[in-house]
């Protein structure tokens, strides 16, 4: 799982290292594949992604090309369903019931459940080996806070992986991020990388 929305809030330094090491056959779960040369787009450019699970790939022609040429498998999922499946995965739930997608192609192959006369799709939880996230502030224990719209998927995927690696704009002394301003608590974070 990789944080970010059109590359905003994606840990570029970790992505660059994956490209340098040529880590291939990756399954990437992310909101989108950004654009060529940015964020998840760099992994796509390098041909490292075997499968993408995302809500939107429309602004990355390279992802579309690889999908059409069947070099990459792409699962497209409504954005609200994608983030909620990840949230479920991080919170010990088997899945969620959502009205989104009922009666559309999204419904195919899924269990439909009626509650109080309204139909919902059973959407199963998503979990990953690694979450690669970007934070604005990280303290030495791994407490994280985020800036503006770079938060997006980051705190949610931090909960839904075996190993969470954060790259932070600033690494600060413990105590500098006030408890009320910590969004991702330290025990969720396994490794911190400085961005600079």
């Amino acid at each position, binding site marked *: 799982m990789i944080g970010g*929305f059109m590359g905003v809030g994606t840990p570029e330094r970790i992505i660059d290292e994956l490209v340098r090491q040529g880590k291939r056959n990756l399954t990437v779960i992310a909101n989108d594949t950004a654009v060529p040369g940015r964020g998840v787009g760099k992994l796509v450019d390098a041909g490292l992604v075997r499968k993408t699970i995302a809500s*939107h790939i429309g602004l990355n022609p390279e992802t579309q090309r690889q999908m059409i040429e069947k070099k990459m498998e792409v699962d497209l999922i409504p954005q609200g369903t994608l983030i909620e499946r990840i949230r479920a995965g991080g919170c010990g739930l088997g899945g969620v019931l959502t009205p*989104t997608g*009922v*009666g559309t192609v999204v419904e195919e192959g899924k269990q439909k459940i009626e509650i109080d006369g309204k139909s919902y799709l059973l959407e199963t939880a998503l979990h990953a080996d690694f979450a690669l996230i970007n934070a604005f502030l990280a303290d030495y224990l791994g407490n994280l806070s985020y800036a503006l*719209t770079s938060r997006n998927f980051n705190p949610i995927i931090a909960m839904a992986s075996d190993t969470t690696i954060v790259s932070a704009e600033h690494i600060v002394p413990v105590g500098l991020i006030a408890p009320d301003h910590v969004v991702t608590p330290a025990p969720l974070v396994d490794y911190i990388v400085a961005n600079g």
Partner: protein
Amino acid sequence: MDAQSIIAKRIALELRTGMLVNLGIGIPTMVANYVPDNIKVFFQSENGLIGTGPIPEEGMAHPLLTDAGGQPVTALPGASTFDSAMSFGLIRGGHVDMTVLGALQIDGKGLLANWMIPGKMVPGMGGAMDLVSGAKRVVIAMQHTAKGKPKIVNKCTLPLTSIRPVDLVVTEMAVIAFPEGRATLMETGPGVSVEQIVAATEAKLVVPDKIPTMQL
């Protein structure tokens, strides 16, 4: 006024003070340019922002402050930021009062297709399905025809976005609503006749006796 400006300006008249409003990409984004002076609304960007402001002046863009299209925006005083689960909780949970979206096709009952053309354009649905399923009011901003062909059709041939019908369609030619599940002409565009609208619409339109012109 060009077609896009007519559409955006007419939709801006649907805004009421205090509303939480989500604008899609394209013509819907332009609605923000026409908010009446006496109306104060909150715009949401589904990437995690309420209180989205205008495009920043040159040189003033913040790299970590963007809209759902990834373009730089500003945050107005009183803005708030949050994660994607919260953002879509707002959308699906019925907290968004109005969403304005584009369309590829609308059928006579108000069902919308706006996210893919099989074999041609497969960008992914992004937030569209959640917005149409969850927002209190769904307003469509689109040109009445595409390459001369009607976009308001008997039945959508493209994959649907939701089984929840939209509430209002605004084009440069007409305002159309769907009372009792039937496409009904509510207003005509500037300088457009009812006959022209009917001719440019494939779906059967209910045409009341008196139809006002858009007051822009």
